């Protein structure tokens, strides 16, 4: 019997090659998309689970709250880790700290071979690192590798980078020109599926050596530059531990002298496996991803699979008319209804199986492209993971059952008497159901397309939005605690000798980037409340000029006023609301006080008011801001993080070469590095950018699949109506009349689908856009998007439907009638 079923299934597939092709291709594309997305999402969800003890590793994070601010930070003070180990010896087995000196990158030099690089993924960490995290040490002893001061462990790749094929153990690397570190271990490359990126690790005890001159460096509870991880006991309840840890706020934070009175601290435990998708705090080690996006993708995968399954359902029910005789006969011969249901479900499974095999091939073929799109190195093969094959089988079964059950029940319920009489079941049966499905399908496609358009427009808006400063043609050189600080003025002077270089300034943070730095600059008269802070930006001369900021009143910092570094500040327009003034002019001369952590308050006068610009990313709104001038090597070392170079438009390579040669002359240690400001700012929206390109691809695919279904249905409908077409034509209908007749029913559905999708997409995208304080002009653009997507889909659908309509309309009527 099975053989008979398979035979008839194959012959049916071969007999209607067109339908089978549509059915299987659509399903295969849908399944491939699904597999890709699931692979991606599983990868995203697997972050940090490669640690054997991942279920017991938590990161401790802190949120500081005061009346007007709430800062969620990923980092904690130095002392938290030892305190926790001491306070909760039963619950916390060990803890590990990470510290990066708050530098974006670190220079390492192999003096012997004269090789130097800047490393971004370097941390000082505790010797317990290897107890907590699961990464293999290829050379060295995990117990001692990070014990002694100035020990260095590097990854396999890094070892090769600095030492080639030589054995790196015992060799020295110079750290930032200040210390020689000795390589004590080589570890496997740190996995990509981690919220951390690690290339080099130095022993935490090195810090005692490096900070020998200020032995109190780690005692402050106000300074929190440390990432703290704890490994908890197997039977410790993390929620309970969290409340216990919260108790430390009182005992240590608030008890610390100088802790602001109205500020409270909330300490939380984050499971390490949750960080990548669920943590978006200040000072994250890396920019994390977000569960919103994996969820959106999963929804998209579901949509596409449903669209593909609907094709299958629709074409099978439509085709069932042709198979009703077979059903009738099987019943006459004594076949039970259940037997027929099994037969058709079996056929559906068979088709799904072919589709999933094709789908897997598609996945393998498209994976490189997909990896490029997502910036991942995903792999797909059936055997490395024991769950892959069963999961694929489950997917096949789901698709087979989901798309096969309706046709199966529909077909098997045919009454043999009526079927064999050739009546009873008209070509109209199941039509309503098919119409509903097509509408649903296209609604989903429209939804995806509108979503894509909204994401695209919002990103474009963000990229093109005037930030209030000129982000183009600006070069950024990392200069934090850099040797160049000693020669800052001559570096600037010499660089400016190149005709293309227009302005140079040092900045404490990159304008438009995520970081927010609050300092205690407060307007006089608002009381000398020490808890009052404002955003502040430290700059050297020519900041306003380099970024082409607009001065509303007063003046910019100037060398003509030698007292500027000690007495003058600039404020932005938003700050006016904190002052008791009616105009920018009036604000000139206002007094601000700066309250340093120790010592007397310092007095500053406002010398200029500048137009608001986006100090932070566009994910945050503009806040009142103080701009402070820094001058002299000590201040530059303390505050300047980047040097911004404004270059005149055109090919920048000559100018860059010029700066590089000067840099190399003045700074033999730190390698010359640069990047463009606009590119740096684009990175902030990387996850949105990724989602945008993924969504575009998937929205297009969904339309392709839906149209494949429409192609099949319209061809079927044209086939059924051959006789009607013949009769109409013999009565004088033109080709256009016929095409209209055949296309109308489908196009109405597509229009209906648009109408259904509009309100849904409106509320859906609104929800996403709430993440952005700055949004594109929805009132104007949403109707345009709606109409445009509607028109595009309608057009594609029309082309799809017309293909068969025109083909059948052209048929000689005599032939059409006889063909019935």
């Amino acid at each position, binding site marked *: *019997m099975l053989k*008979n079923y398979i*035979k*008839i299934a194959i*012959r*049916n597939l071969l*007999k209607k090659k067109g339908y089978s092709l549509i059915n299987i291709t659509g399903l295969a594309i849908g399944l491939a998309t699904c597999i890709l997305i699931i692979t991606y999402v599983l990868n995203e969800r697997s972050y940090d689970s490669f640690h054997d003890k991942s279920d017991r590793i938590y990161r401790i994070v802190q949120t500081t709250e005061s009346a007007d601010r709430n800062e969620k930070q990923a980092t904690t003070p130095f002392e938290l880790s030892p305190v926790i180990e001491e306070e909760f010896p039963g619950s916390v087995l060990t803890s590990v700290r990470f510290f990066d000196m708050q530098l974006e990158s670190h220079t390492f030099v192999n003096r012997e071979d004269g090789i130097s690089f800047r490393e971004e993924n370097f941390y000082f960490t505790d010797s317990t690192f290897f107890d907590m995290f699961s990464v293999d040490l290829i050379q060295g002893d995990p117990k001692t590798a990070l014990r002694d001061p100035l020990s260095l462990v590097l990854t396999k790749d890094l070892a090769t980078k600095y030492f080639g094929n030589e054995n790196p153990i015992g060799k020295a690397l110079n750290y930032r020109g200040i210390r020689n570190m000795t390589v004590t271990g080589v570890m496997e490359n740190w996995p990509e599926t981690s919220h951390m990126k690690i290339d080099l690790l130095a022993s935490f005890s090195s810090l005692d050596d490096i900070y020998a001159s200020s032995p109190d460096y780690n005692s402050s509870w106000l300074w929190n530059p440390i990432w703290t991880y704890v490994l908890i006991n197997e039977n410790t309840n993390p929620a309970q531990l969290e409340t216990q840890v919260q108790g430390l706020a009182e005992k240590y934070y608030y008890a610390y002298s100088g802790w602001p009175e109205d500020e409270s601290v909330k300490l939380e435990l984050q499971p390490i496996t949750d960080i990548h998708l669920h943590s978006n705090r200040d000072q994250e080690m890396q920019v994390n991803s977000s569960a919103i996006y994996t969820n959106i993708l999963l929804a998209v995968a579901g949509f596409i699979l449903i669209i593909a399954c609907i094709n299958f359902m629709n074409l099978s029910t439509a085709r069932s008319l042709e198979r009703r*005789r*077979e059903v*009738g*006969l*099987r*019943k*006459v*011969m*004594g*076949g*039970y*209804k259940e*037997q027929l249901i099994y037969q058709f479900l079996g056929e559906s499974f068979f088709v799904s199986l072919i589709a999933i095999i094709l789908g897997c091939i598609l996945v393998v073929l498209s994976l490189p492209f997909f990896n490029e799109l997502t910036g991942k190195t995903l792999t797909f093969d059936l055997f490395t993971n024991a769950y892959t094959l069963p999961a694929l089988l489950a997917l096949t079964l789901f698709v087979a059952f989901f798309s096969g059950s309706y046709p199966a029940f529909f077909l098997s319920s045919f009454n*043999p*008497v009526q079927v*064999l*009489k*050739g009546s009873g079941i008209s070509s109209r049966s199941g039509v309503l159901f098919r119409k509903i499905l097509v509408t649903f399908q296209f609604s989903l496609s429209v939804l995806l397309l509108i979503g894509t358009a909204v994401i695209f427009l919002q990103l474009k808006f963000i990229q093109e939005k005037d930030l209030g400063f000129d982000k183009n043609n600006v070069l950024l050189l990392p200069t934090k605690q850099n040797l160049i600080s000693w020669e800052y003025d001559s570096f600037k002077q010499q660089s400016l000798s190149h005709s293309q270089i227009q302005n140079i300034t040092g900045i404490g943070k990159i304008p438009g980037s995520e970081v927010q730095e609050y300092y205690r600059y407060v307007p006089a008269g608002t009381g000398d409340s020490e808890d009052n802070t404002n955003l502040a930006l430290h700059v050297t001369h020519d900041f306003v000029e380099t970024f082409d900021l607009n001065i509303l009143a007063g003046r910019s910092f100037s060398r003509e006023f030698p007292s500027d570094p000690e007495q003058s500040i600039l404020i932005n327009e938003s700050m006016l609301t904190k002052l008791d003034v009616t105009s920018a002019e009036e604000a000139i001369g206002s007094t601000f006080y700066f309250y340093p952590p120790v010592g007397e308050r310092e007095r500053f006068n406002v010398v200029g008011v500048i137009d608001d610009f986006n100090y932070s990313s566009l994910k945050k709104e503009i806040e009142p801001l103080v701009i402070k001038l820094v001058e002299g090597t000590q201040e530059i070392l303390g505050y300047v993080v980047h040097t911004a170079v404004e270059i005149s438009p055109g090919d920048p390579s000559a100018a860059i070469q010029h700066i590089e040669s000067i840099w190399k002359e003045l700074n033999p240690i730190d390698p010359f590095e640069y990047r463009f400001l606009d590119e740096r700012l684009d990175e902030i929206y990387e996850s949105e950018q990724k989602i945008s390109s993924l969504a575009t691809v998937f929205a297009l695919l969904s339309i392709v699949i839906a149209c494949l279904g429409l192609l099949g249905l319209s061809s079927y409908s044209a086939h059924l109506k051959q006789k009607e077409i013949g009769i109409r034509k013999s009565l004088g209908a033109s080709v256009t009349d016929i095409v209209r007749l055949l296309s109308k029913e489908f196009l109405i559905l597509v229009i209906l689908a648009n109408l259904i999708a509009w309100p849904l997409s409106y509320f859906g995208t609104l929800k996403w856009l709430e993440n952005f304080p700055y949004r594109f002009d929805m009132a104007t653009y949403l109707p345009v998007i709606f109409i445009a997507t509607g028109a595009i889909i309608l057009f594609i659908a029309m082309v799809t439907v017309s293909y068969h309509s025109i083909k059948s309309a052209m048929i000689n009527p005599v032939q059409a009638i006889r063909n019935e």
Partner: protein
Amino acid sequence: MIETRDLNKIYRTEEVETTALNGVNITINDGEFVAVMGPSGCGKSTLLNIMGLLDSPTSGEYYFMGNEISGYTEKQRAQLRKGNIGFIFQSFNLIDELTVFENVELPLLYLGLDTAVRTSKVEQTLDRMGMIHRRNHFPQQLSGGQQQRVAIARAVVADAKLILADEPTGNLDSDHGDEVMKLLTELNKSGTTIVMVTHSPHDAKYAGRLINLFDGKVVTEGQEEAFHV
């Protein structure tokens, strides 16, 4: 073999109620060859479908091989039908996707017979119908008469006790029609009960008895000679 008592069949649609069978009492004995005649729409096919357990009567009793079946479920009727009743239709009703052999094999598959048994039975039957050389052809590759012979083979392959034929010669020319009638007569001679609906008095002559239906009622019933004046 068959006995009906006061059999009624009423079709209800939204607009009209059609009485297709109206108090039909018929007895057909084992080994009979009965022809059913009557004007179009008088209920012949309806009667045949009920006899063949494809349809159930609205009221009345129907005894098939001693079983009263009016209360049977669809599944029970299918069970009883298997192997006992063979059908022959005016439009042949072969499955296009199956070969001649596979079409004939179908009833045996539903009976759950072994491959070997099935093959020998199918080959035997096809041989008897003179179609063995066409065993691997598809229905579209055959003439109408050949297709009907395959259909007959399919009806008898499972050793059906009863063959129900609804206008088996309706789509055939007279030569091919006669061939089919000869086959049916042979089957009848070898013990199969046959009930055949026909519009052709010529074909009805092959039958041993004639039932005349008019407006859902049996009007005359008797030996074939009696009506052939």
